[in-house]
């Protein structure tokens, strides 16, 4: 059978659109391709055992479609860095619920009883980090810094095993940078350069993480022509973005 004969008109349009997108993207980026990919391809990029940074705050600003694909394909043994483990049916929580995480590095797990259960049963490792420290460690990882000094956690259990550095008589903890194999980012809009616009409080960790991973995969609600986003509204430049999945508004 020729697969072409099985194509309905929708698929033909989609293939043409995809082709145009790729051609357009290559052309506009001067040969540096922003790959606009189908959601299916995500599971070919992300291998089991990867370290992932995932944007979002209790699931708000999290690329849910990419997470759903990881769950569907059962890509596990993951180390996940994010603000929290959200809820059992939302955001990073779905990876936890489906036992796909070897370890999570987050600031909060209180909204996901399954995280607590797996932690207590030693099925998954949980590293808790103060939220502001997590943000700065991710930022340091993306900004080429050797670490940051923060007063947060001094004199508490967070200090355990860390260097305390005194500056002008005040104590700080040396917190080290973190990076990941992949950053999974959620954007409101993306253009064919990969420039990203975020929406309201769905911004959170996304722009920080886009700097701190070897490969950056974005789930954008819509993709628009280059030049339609104003320089001011773009918070992540396209040069940082490797792949984009267009999800539509949900």
């Amino acid at each position: 059978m020729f697969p072409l004969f099985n194509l309905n008109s929708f698929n033909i349009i989609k293939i043409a659109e995809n082709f145009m997108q790729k051609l357009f993207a290559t052309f506009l980026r001067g040969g540096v391709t922003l790959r606009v990919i189908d959601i299916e391809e995500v599971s070919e990029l992300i291998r089991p055992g990867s370290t992932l940074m995932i944007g979002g705050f209790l699931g708000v600003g999290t690329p849910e479609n990419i997470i759903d694909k990881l769950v569907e394909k059962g890509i596990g043994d993951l180390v996940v860095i994010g603000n929290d483990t959200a809820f059992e049916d939302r955001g990073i929580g779905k990876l936890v619920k489906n036992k796909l995480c070897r370890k999570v590095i987050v600031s909060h797990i209180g909204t996901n009883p399954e995280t607590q259960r797996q932690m207590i049963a030693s099925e998954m490792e949980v590293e808790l980090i103060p939220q502001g420290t997590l943000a700065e460690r991710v930022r340091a990882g993306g900004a080429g810094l050797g670490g940051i000094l923060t007063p947060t956690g001094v004199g508490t259990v967070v200090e355990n095993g860390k260097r305390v550095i005194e500056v002008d008589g005040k104590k700080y903890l040396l917190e080290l940078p973190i990076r990941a194999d992949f950053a999974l980012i959620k954007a409101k809009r993306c253009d064919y350069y990969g420039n990203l616009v975020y929406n309201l409080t769905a911004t959170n960790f996304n722009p920080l993480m886009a700097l701190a991973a070897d490969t950056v995969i974005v789930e954008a609600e819509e993709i628009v022509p280059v030049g339609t986003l104003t320089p001011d509204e773009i918070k992540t430049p396209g040069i940082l973005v490797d792949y984009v999945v267009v999800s539509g508004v949900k």
Partner: protein
Amino acid sequence: MPVDSKEKIARRVAQELKEGYLVNLGIGLPTLVANYIPKDIHVFFQSENGIVGMGPEPEKGYENKDLTNAGAGFITALPGAMTFDSAFSFALIRGGHLDVTVLGGLQVDEEGHLANWMVPGKMVPGMGGAMDLVTGAKEVIVAMTHTAKGEPKIVKRCSLPLTSVRRVSLIVTELAVIEPTDDGLLLKEIAEETTLEEVLRLTEARLIVSSELKKF
């Protein structure tokens, strides 16, 4: 906790807010403080997930999936509001730009140290933004019930892991308003519904009773 106790605490905490303050309210009881802001002042609310100028919950049907508070509840953005990323949000908090944070508490001790993020072996929600808030805000107000299941929460020394070694500014319960000072915990106000004897009996920590003890 009876609803009127929560209300009493929230009402009293709201009296501490001043014109132009940038305020962060924790999830739960502290959120109620927003309902009792004195009519003659304007304050700005920050939510650490990334907004200054947070407004109340929208009417049904007007929710925006990308506009939420730190508990993932739907909010509104008031005219003049700004949204930003998590590093900027915590720069505001840690950098001394936040005037007041109001947080719940599990224990506060004689040194004014707060424990509010875990009960080892029982409840480990994680610290979220609490450690940064207590370390960095100009004023830290603890809004909590005076006791838990009859056990004092204002203790000689916290048995639970501390949130910060920074001394909190004020403790407001349904029975008392207490200010941690260099000399210890100063009992400044007691509730209309209670007596000095009851407050002392339900507090494990040593209290210094103010010579100008007021009722609230």
